[in-house]
């Protein structure tokens, strides 16, 4: 029962952040949009990568749910129900495939069916690797969706594919770098240092 609650929380948390980041992307980062579907700096890609690192394959359900909330309620798109389902499956499958491939390739991941990541030993290059894999699979599957979708009906264009790939990599990896910088700066704010000092005093 506890495990079910834990997984539900993970899915809801991922869905919330994915919907939130899609909202931020469409409301405040519209300058980076190349067209309606492709962006050169796509920050929700960061949530896809980091939720998969934190929650494994269950993150796929959260991402699909977050996407559903966004395209149905927050920014309704003129998709048919079959297209919405296909789109949700597309993001979920791309995330699961990228995690699976990364688990196969990386030496810092054990078990493929339920990947256990060695957080103590991963470095920025491992993060870049998963960002790249995720970007490749997402761009590929998204293009299959756009080509199939009767509403979008996009003709395959290598240039669009490259732009989308670039947008996913920059969105996820740059956000990772920015989050690291902000965290390092926050750690140096006296309030944090005081907290450590208090703990030390209490221990004494």
């Amino acid at each position, binding site marked *: 029962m506890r495990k079910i609650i834990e997984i539900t929380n993970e899915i809801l948390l991922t869905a919330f952040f994915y919907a939130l980041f899609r909202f931020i992307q469409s409301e405040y980062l519209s300058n980076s949009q190349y067209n309606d579907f492709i962006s050169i700096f796509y920050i929700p890609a960061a949530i896809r990568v980091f939720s998969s690192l*934190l929650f494994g394959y269950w993150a796929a359900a959260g991402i699909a749910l977050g996407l559903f909330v966004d395209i149905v309620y927050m920014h309704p798109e003129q998709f048919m129900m079959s297209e919405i389902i296909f789109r949700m499956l597309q993001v979920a499958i791309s995330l699961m495939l990228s995690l699976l491939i990364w688990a196969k390739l990386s030496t810092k991941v054990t078990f493929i069916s339920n990947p256990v990541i060695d*957080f*103590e030993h991963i470095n920025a290059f491992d993060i870049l690797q998963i960002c790249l894999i995720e970007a490749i699979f997402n761009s590929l599957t998204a293009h299959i969706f756009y080509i199939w979708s009767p509403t979008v009906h996009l003709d395959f264009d290598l240039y669009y594919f490259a732009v989308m790939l670039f947008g996913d990599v920059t969105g996820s990896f740059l956000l990772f770098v920015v989050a690291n910088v902000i965290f*390092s700066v926050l*750690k140096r704010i006296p309030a944090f240092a005081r907290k450590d000092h208090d703990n030390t005093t209490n221990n004494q």
Partner: protein
Amino acid sequence: MKIGLASKIYCLLSLLETKHNLSWADGLHRQILMAVLNAQCSGMKYSNQEIVDLNLTSRSSTYRKISDLKQLGFLSEIWDDTTCYLILGPSAVGMLAEADNTLKVMSEKDN
């Protein structure tokens, strides 16, 4: 080993700093001072050039930090022929003595 969500997030957010030795402007003074202190503890002395060779940051930035530390009394210069060596200055020595006394008091209390 299974680690919690908070630990995973902490690992990811401090990854650049811990794994890639990402130095920040406010930490460079401390790093230079630590290098001088460690050298002095092991009976060595660093020259300005040797501090630059540690590649803590760019050459000009290292010289600026050394100059700041000298101004605040944390570093002093001693000359050996034509080479200028850096040693701990009166402020740093004072702070170390103060820390030493505090540690002595604490250890006496424990006993």
